């Protein structure tokens, strides 16, 4: 069974604000689904490679040639907060990850 705490953790990971009602409903609904989907645990899949793609393909590659693309204005149309050519967000405290 899915605990309330787990639901909150998943919501945090997914950066979804859920209010109390939503959290409670979600707990019940996700719990029911996971129970229903539990049947897969009993299926023997030894040595079956997971099917990541619907059709077998190799990665195509393109040439390293610059193509005309978005202007800054096109790139930033609809950006909720801007300062000139920059996107503005609330202050970030921690450093970058990569």
């Amino acid at each position: 069974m899915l605990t309330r705490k787990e639901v909150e953790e998943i919501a945090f990971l997914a950066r979804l604000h859920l209010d109390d009602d939503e959290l409670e409903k979600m707990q019940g609904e996700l719990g029911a689904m996971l129970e229903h989907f539990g049947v897969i645990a009993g299926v023997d899949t030894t040595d079956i490679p997971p099917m990541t793609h619907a059709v077998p393909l190799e990665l195509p590659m393109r040439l390293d040639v610059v193509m005309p693309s978005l202007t800054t204005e096109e790139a930033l149309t609809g950006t909720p907060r801007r300062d000139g050519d920059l996107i503005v967000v609330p202050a970030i405290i921690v450093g970058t990850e990569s």
Partner: protein
Amino acid sequence: MSSSPEFWTVTDTVKRVASGEISAVRAVNTLISRITNLDRELGAYLSTDETGALRDAAEVDRRRKENIPLGPLAGVPIALKDNLVTRGIPTTAGSKILQGWVPPFDATVVEKLRAAGAVILGKANLDEFGMGSSTERSAYKKTRNPWDTSRVPGGSSGGSAAAVAAGLAAASLGTDTGGSIRQPAAFCGVVGLKPTYGRVSRWGVIAFASSLDQVGPLTRTVKDAALVLQVIAGHDLRDSTSLDAPVPAFADAATGDVKGMKIGLPKEYFEGAIDADIRAALDRTIAALKDKGALFDDVSLPHTKLALPAYYLVAPAEASSNLARYDGIRYGKRAEGTDLLDVYRKSRGAGFGPEVKRRIMLGTYALRSGYYEAYYKKAQQIRALIKRDFDEVFAKVDVVLTPTTPTVAFRFNAKATPLDMYLGDIFTLACNLAGLPGMSVPCGISSDGLPIGAQLLGKPLDEVTVIRAGSAIEAAVGLGERRPAGIGGI
């Protein structure tokens, strides 16, 4: 053949526009007024682009007058599901989180339609991000089933199906991740074709589940579906999962000839709870095809029952990832918050509807470290087993025939829980998991006067056989000239 263009087939429209019997502008105008009159009740469109449509229609007429060769869809008025990206035309995917976004580029399918002379009327309603089977999950409006307005049109391409069924477009494009073209096609009495995964470019298709999504046509005839597919199919360098395979003349396959064709009937698709009317319609379909010389074979797809859990783990997992980009930072709606984390959580919390949140939650759960093996990876292994079932069956038969849905179109708010809704998809999911082409063709009307769909599943890249079988069903047990009577006195 009617003298007014609203129910003309694609083939008719192209012929009449090309011969000058009607101008593209007049044909398009007729549909625009019909949309103005009827769509307030039907709710098939989220937005229309009358200016753009008339401009493109005028261009077709100019070319005709100047004897410049016309494209294969010249003057054909088309609706696009609103998860297909259109340059300069707002694209919402049925979600509040994309409200106001005006894309700076076109989807490949949109470019191809335009190049073929098609005229884009507007953007059709859908379940938010394609997640749903009734179009009730659109953040914007309800789409009604033109056969009975108290019922859903199906989903998620509900707007696309309803528009074509009600004569508000000659054809439309939908997307199909787990049945989202075929199921609404069945509910609305139109033809819906989901091509082989990779047959049609996904560039500009707003991703729901990347390894399952395909674009395909919804039309009133099988031949029309083939014509539209022929235009939108083909290798695209902008989509790394696009197949570099020749595109056959699909429309030539709509001959109705099934003599000697081997058709498999998978027992798992006929043994569960299915409406009696649907069962009877399928029986009539089988009998009619036998008359035409088709050979039937009982086959088994033993992992069919596992398609639902596999699908509802794989699709939400990919969705949780694909929808991570909607954060209110670069485009779309941002909710203000006390800090960055707050902005993320509130923008996403307010921007997504309940079904989308549910799937993001489920998908996030399935991908967490420590759970990945038991859920996502396991589901992908089961997917491989499902594919293997089909490979074995297709060694024996040319195509598989099943019902598209276990029930006809249901009433609004009929599904008590999300899981109840998911269970309605049992017949359409395996096709996407295995990457196969699939089609729903009308094969009768229920005692309630609602359309019934037959589903054909083909070998990878063998849309031709699916189209051939589909055209035979259409000729034998199709709806003919029957039109939905549920709306605006159609």
